[in-house]
């Protein structure tokens, strides 16, 4: 029976609920913008990683090299888009 119980998935689900609750605290507690934003960003990235690895089975097949390359590529492009936009629209705007 022990082998059949999806321990990893159940733990992952509980952890994912904890992360959601932590993110929700930003709304209910009174914290500064910087602290709130940090909590949101950190929980969001951990949550995304959790979903990819535990529930979408990235890294369990032999083509995991391809899958992770794609994820990192997507991450780079997302970061470039976000920070490039901030640079063009806010920081570098006269």
């Amino acid at each position: 029976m022990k082998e059949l119980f999806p321990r990893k998935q159940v733990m992952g689900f509980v952890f994912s609920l904890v992360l959601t609750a932590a993110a929700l605290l930003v709304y209910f507690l009174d914290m500064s913008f910087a602290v709130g934003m940090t909590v949101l960003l950190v929980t969001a990235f951990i949550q995304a990683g959790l979903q990819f690895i535990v529930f979408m089975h990235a890294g369990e097949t032999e083509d995991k090299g391809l899958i992770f390359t794609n994820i990192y590529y997507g991450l780079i492009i997302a970061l470039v888009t976000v920070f490039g936009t901030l640079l063009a629209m806010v920081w570098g705007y006269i």
Partner: protein
Amino acid sequence: MDFFDRFAIPHPSPVIYASMVAIGLTVIAIVAGLTYFKKWGYLWREWITTVDHKRIGIMYLLSALLMLFRGGVDALMMRAQTAVPENTLLDAQHYNEIFTTHGVVMIIFMAMAFIIALMNFVVPLQIGARDVAFPRLNNLSFWLYFMGAMLFNLSFVIGGSPSAGWTSYFPLAGNEFSESVGTNYYMLAIQISGIGTLMTGINFIATILKMRAPGMKLMKMPMFTWSALITNLIIVFAFPVLTVALAMGTMDRLFGSNFFTTTDGGMDMLWANLFWVWGHPEVYILILPAFGIYSEIIPTFARRNLYGYKSMVASMVLISLLSFFVWVHHFFTMGQGALVNSIFSISTMAIAVPTGIKIFNWLFTLWKGKIKFTVPMLYSLGFLPIFTIGGVTGVMLGMSAADYQYHNTMFLVAHFHLVIIPGVVFAMIAGLTYWWPKMFGFMLNERIGKWTFWFIAGGTCLAFFPMFISGLDGQARRMYTYSEATGFGIWNMLSFIGALGLAAGFVLLVYNIYYSTRYASRDIGDDPWDARSLEWATHNPVPEYNFAITPQVNSSEAFWDSKKNGHTLFKGDYKEIHMPNNSGVPFIMSIIFFVLGFALVFSMWIVAIVSLIGIFACLAHRSFEKDHGHHISVEEIEKTEAEMRGAK
């Protein structure tokens, strides 16, 4: 505005009323023709519900040609209006509507459809697969694209065309300055067809990564398949940005949100920013498949293998990455500081390096080759110099300090037409002519094809080179008229003559299709060009299952090596083949999407909610459906193969 007033054309003219009548008559004629010849069942079974990548490719192709003519007529009207100073053929509002429609139709509904058409037809054949990874999703992609295109074209007769430019910059595109429903059409039609494109992207990445023939390592893939892989990667990373931007724009226009307004915390420039975060990678989505096509055609007709395979792949990967680093060069003059502009100037110039590598690789492939001047080869050879001139002027525009001089002038218009026409249109016609025998089992007439090439190439040069001069003289783009004293008259008249040449070329192309359908020989064998890659190893026309026996590959030019160096492609015996079933659900779902789009354009909420429920019902139906496909038995394969002159 009263509810029913919104359906009327805001700026009617006799031409539009005539078009309404013409559209009505065409629809009646098509319906009557289909009924009279009893073709409804055939159309439904063989085409509308098909999951065969080859048929979906051909449907994309027909739609793309249709849209090419729609966009081409717009272009001719614009050139006619500006051919002489103070012309009154069109008024300002009509001119705005026409250049907006021209841009959207040509980029989203013509060029995208054309590249997806050729990818659909060629990629599974080149990698030795039986179909794409998700055949039914492929059908849905096509119908979503088609419904998006039809919704957009409907704007012209119901409610008025969008008129804020194909870039649709806010605040001009907001409700305050664009009162008619035209821009709603823009947002929703592109959204619907964009969802289809995104699905195509996912579908083809999965197909190319997972379904290659045994032995075909990534570095042994044909160059067109490589370019398709990279293109679809860019689609998957770029299109979500457009989806989000369009959703925000739709909410601004329909629900009064403030993403892109100038008040209440909105930021109008954010639209331009997000649009080009998608828009610049989009340029490479269009050009990379073209590069792939030229990389197939040039080795075939230079009778040499492609020079620098690895550097071709590396430069495409580099282009795909850099294409996400340059978007700000589309709005250097919007008010960013010198630092930002310098960063994006440098990244823009950097992207010219991998492109240059590719140009040199093609030149080295031609070097000492035994060149055969066929029609596809003529387009490839015409592409090299014209595209290089277009590209180099792009680097001029990419220098931010100098860009203040030519930003938004006809110089820009000349630049992007001189890259997009040789880069996309030439490539698509070349690819069409090259793969036509594989699609339809006969070849297009070479003699008419060469005339077509000279009209199109000459027309392109005559239409767009004068714009460099008038642009540097100060003619702004999108000006609907100008005074005689400006001196722009002569250049615009030359452009108009060039546009007529292009039009003549396209008429010849259609005539060629008609002529060859009637008179061309059907006895051309499976490999009429003496080509090099796997799609030519199967029969003409291609059977439903593509290859009776899955090919074994051990070089990057598998078919060439099987012809000349004694490699065996097909080992073993026939086995039962498992194929996907046709389905009508994607078509029905896309019709519901069309209704949803139309309802949202006119803020008909009840219809919109009902159609949303319909879409979810279709999704649920798919989830609970049991569909295991069908099997083609060995006897059937033997029969088909015998009919097609036996397997090799």
